[in-house]
């Protein structure tokens, strides 16, 4: 259907050895993992063990993706996106193909996992996603093309991992890549400026997609009411409504806000209604509780030391006084 098919590389057969022109590392292709817009991803064997290797034709777009992967690798303390190893060129019959090597994430697609393990996992995995997004946003980045296809559940305990981070955009710019169903611009509910609320809209749409596996198109008019009805009319989505509607309407400024409210909602169950009104103050209480205890402990320790020294001084004085007399 397109005239820009030059972006596709002919399939690389199993067993092919790919060696880099610049860094001289060798990789042996094991199997094809998938086709992306900008290239093909393979599972490969190497000295580092099993890795994922993406081969493209356009070195600028491959480089662009690597820029993002490198940035994500620099985020401390949290594993965002696949770990980046190296970028190089592969010379094959006179042509030069750019490729990069990253961590192979051996996971299960998000919805396959939820179908197998149960709907209650949606909330939990969304909590994980929101925590990671919060870290990403703190670093000045927005995910952009957030959708189920870009999310895998890995290992035990199950952890949500990000697969394709090619749409990641620095804050304040326009989102590089998006998918209509998860894009607030498509639904007429906002622009495409990279900001935290853009990603949070997509998170809400991922949950909606879980309730409507076949997705749905936008109506001619009144998308807001239309989406709210979709939530209302779905058993799974109804319980998340307060959070979903806020995210869809861009009322969360930070991922952490949405995460706190989702956390309270998941904990609450029956008591949700009572707690909901207090959730704001409850949030700040939770936050302050987290930071305060160590401070208190430190202070009481200090007081103990002062008391002890005072006691010792007192007895020493008594002792000295005793000597004098």
């Amino acid at each position, binding site marked *: 259907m397109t005239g820009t098919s030059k972006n596709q590389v002919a399939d690389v057969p199993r067993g092919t050895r790919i060696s880099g022109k610049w860094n001289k590392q060798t990789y042996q292709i094991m199997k094809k993992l998938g086709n992306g817009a900008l290239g093909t991803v393979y599972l490969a064997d190497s000295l580092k063990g099993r890795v994922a290797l993406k081969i493209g034709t356009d*070195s600028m777009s491959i480089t*662009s993706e690597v820029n993002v992967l490198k940035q994500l690798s620099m985020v401390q303390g949290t594993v965002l996106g696949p770990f980046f190893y190296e970028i190089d060129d592969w010379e094959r019959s006179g042509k030069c193909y750019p490729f990069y090597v990253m961590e192979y994430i051996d996971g299960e697609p998000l919805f396959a996992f939820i179908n197998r393990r149960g709907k209650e996992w949606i909330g939990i995995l969304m909590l994980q996603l929101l925590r990671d997004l919060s870290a990403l946003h703190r670093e000045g980045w927005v995910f952009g093309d957030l959708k189920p296809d870009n999310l895998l559940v890995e290992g035990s305990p199950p952890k949500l991992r990000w697969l394709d981070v090619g749409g990641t955009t620095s804050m304040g*710019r326009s989102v590089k890549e998006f998918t209509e169903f998860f894009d607030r611009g498509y639904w007429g509910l906002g622009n495409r400026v990279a900001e935290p609320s853009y990603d949070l809209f997509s998170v809400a749409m991922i949950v909606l997609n879980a309730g409507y596996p076949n997705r749905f198109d936008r109506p001619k008019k009144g998308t807001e009411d239309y989406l709210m009805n979709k939530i209302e009319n779905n058993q799974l989505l109804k319980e998340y409504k307060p959070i979903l509607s806020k995210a869809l309407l861009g009322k969360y400024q930070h991922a952490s806000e949405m995460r706190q409210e989702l956390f309270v909602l998941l904990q609450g169950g029956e008591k949700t209604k009572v707690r909901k009104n207090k959730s704001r103050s409850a949030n700040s209480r939770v936050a302050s509780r987290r930071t305060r205890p160590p401070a208190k402990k430190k202070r009481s320790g200090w007081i103990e030391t002062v008391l002890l020294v005072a006691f010792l001084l007192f007895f020493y004085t008594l002792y000295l006084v005793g000597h004098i007399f």
Partner: protein
Amino acid sequence: MKKGTLRQILLITDGCSNQGEDPVAMAALAREHGMTVNVIGVLDENERTDGLKEIENIALSGGGIHQLVYAKQLSHTVQMVTRKAMTQTIQGFIHKELQSILGQEKEIEDLPPDKRGQVVEVVDELGETMDLEVLIMIDTSASMQHKLPTVEDALLDLSISLHSRIGENEYALYAFPGKRKQVERLMDWTPILKDIHTIFPKLTTGGITPTGPALKEAIDAYQKKRSKRGLLDDGYIEESSS
């Protein structure tokens, strides 16, 4: 440094031209003037077009990008083609600069991969901050009639994407064939593509497909705009190779 302006002609059509100048020649002329010509071919499901070759050739000689899509995917495609073409133009520009620094026959691929990252960052930065002018040329021949509502949606979508950029945007909108002339101006240069919902329902379709004359008109429109601004503005990027 003034960042300059990118100038694009976006041609939305569904088939072969059948009147007037050769559109491929007109696209080549536009390119000489420093414009990029992008062409989007809109198809119905199961429709085949014999205009494919022409669509491809117009974009090739206009230094732009072409894409055939079904009406349903039009929105996503229009904004993507526009962005891709911007990136391509900027890359061509940077490529020239690199050659003047590194010497002829040097390509970006000759840089070690780690150095390429910096080049890409410059391209991204420019794509985000440069000003953009898009002249949109819509084929209103009879077979396009039922596709026009989709075109309208796609243009609104394009404006959402472009307005999310940091750089400034300007649009102009033309239709061919027009009511009385081969080409008709629907909207003069404007920074906001907002009022198209008032224009589209009034569009009449019919008859011939004068793609060549339409492109010629687009070039004239750009020339007029430029002379109106006079000598104050000299920030255009003259781009003639890629």
